[in-house]
């Protein structure tokens, strides 16, 4: 990989191998060339996306970003980009563990090789709408419609340097609505906190864990009762028993009936007590 440090240009390994390097000297304060084989597969479409959005930041910069973005998120929930930055800059060791968990599962390995993306151009929403009710696909569409969300709102990963880990982060973001779907949790405060608990315990991402801990502080007393009596215990046991959400290859299961899917993933449907 040839990269210019303090310049703003990344060059693909394949470009370097062909011997084409264009450099603007004014901006290149340091350049290093590595002869390591690029194992990420330059042909995978995710590679181009990664290149497009990746930003080179030093450890010191990442530290400032993680603290600053954490503060911004707490003070201004209307800045979803800040939450993303916090997740990326604080999640390195969690992402490594998530990657290991995926490598230990056959579906997880497949997802890492294929690097599938979830947005309105990769997922045929019209086809999903026509599926029989109670299939994963139909239920997902129902979830999107009822909660007025689209699969296109997930911000691209910028501050994760390793392409494999960046993909794990991107995948975590893109399956969030599907996690809501299989857990049967709506996008209100109670539902989001429950999902954050499951995600937090399974992934270990600081952003999820802090969301799970600080989120309930905003609950009103009645909601808090429901949270403590029903949502929280269910979320904790689901997190422990269920399949790791990142190892679920959703795209291959659109036609699977929900009942069968939940049994396979060991998810107990939520029942309010």
């Amino acid at each position, binding site marked *: 990989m040839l990269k210019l440090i303090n310049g*703003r240009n990344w060059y693909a390994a394949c470009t370097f191998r062909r011997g084409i390097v264009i450099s603007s000297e004014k901006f290149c304060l340091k350049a290093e060339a590595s002869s390591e084989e690029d194992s990420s597969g330059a042909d995978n479409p995710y590679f181009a996306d990664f290149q497009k959005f990746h930003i080179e*930041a030093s450890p010191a*910069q990442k530290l*400032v*970003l993680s603290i600053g973005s954490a503060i911004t998120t707490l003070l201004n929930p209307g800045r979803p980009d800040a939450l993303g930055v916090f997740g990326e800059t604080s999640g390195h060791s969690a992402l490594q563990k998530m990657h290991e968990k995926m490598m230990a599962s056959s579906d997880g390995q497949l997802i890492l090789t294929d690097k599938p993306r979830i947005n309105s151009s990769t997922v045929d929403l019209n086809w999903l709408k026509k599926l029989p009710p109670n299939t994963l696909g139909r239920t997902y569409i129902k979830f999107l419609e009822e909660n007025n969300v689209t699969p296109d709102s997930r911000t691209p990963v*910028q501050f994760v340097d390793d392409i494999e880990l960046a993909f794990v982060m991107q995948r975590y973001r893109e399956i969030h609505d599907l996690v809501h779907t299989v857990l049967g949790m709506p996008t209100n405060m109670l539902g989001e906190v429950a999902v954050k608990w499951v995600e937090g315990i399974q992934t270990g991402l600081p952003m999820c864990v802090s969301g799970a801990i600080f989120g309930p502080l905003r609950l009103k007393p009645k909601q808090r009762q429901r949270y403590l009596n029903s949502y929280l215990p269910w979320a904790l046991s689901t997190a422990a028993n269920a399949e790791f959400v990142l190892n679920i290859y959703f795209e291959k299961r659109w036609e699977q009936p929900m009942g069968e899917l939940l049994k396979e993933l060991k998810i107990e449907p939520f029942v309010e007590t």
Partner: protein
Amino acid sequence: MNDAMSFGIHRLWKDIFVDRLAPSKPCKILDVAGGTGDIAFRIAKYLRNSDGGGITVCDINQAMLDVGRKRASELGFSGMEWLQGNAECLSSIADNTYDSYTIAFGIRNVTHIDKALKEAYRVLKPGGQFMCLEFSQVQNENLRWLYDQYSFQAIPVMGQLIAGQWKAYQYLVESIRQFPNQEEFAGMIERAGFAFVRHENLTFGVVAIHCGHKL
């Protein structure tokens, strides 16, 4: 963001710029790339008892002009003109129209600076004054190192945290380094036809005021 990046000093730069311009009534002043009105309002305030008459703000970006116009009406500058136009080609402005031409933190973003300078020369009356406030080069080597570190390390991070835009602010600090230094820019102004071209550094050369006259 400007306040955060410059610790509020950009306000002082603009104050000094207008002070150097020293406008006096009656006058016709064209402020180019001045969309949101920072310089125009300062000129109007300098002139005392002014409703902003005689001042035209020109910008390529209509949205910026709209913001400026709104601020102007809140401040009572009803006489100001707001003109959408390209600094490289001010086609709606006749030759020899203005007494002064100002451009603050705008010429750096023009693709063909020489064209903008030629247009500035054209629209000024004989005797007219060209004034430019722009980022320039820090002369002192040690300070320049500090300034570079701040620019490349801190500013993009601030851009990400405050505005959610790392790359735009990285572009900003890179474009500053791409812009000609004090002497080179002075040479360009001379080549456009201006005489008595001189420059003044502010904040150790972080910004410079360039000035020239049409004879």
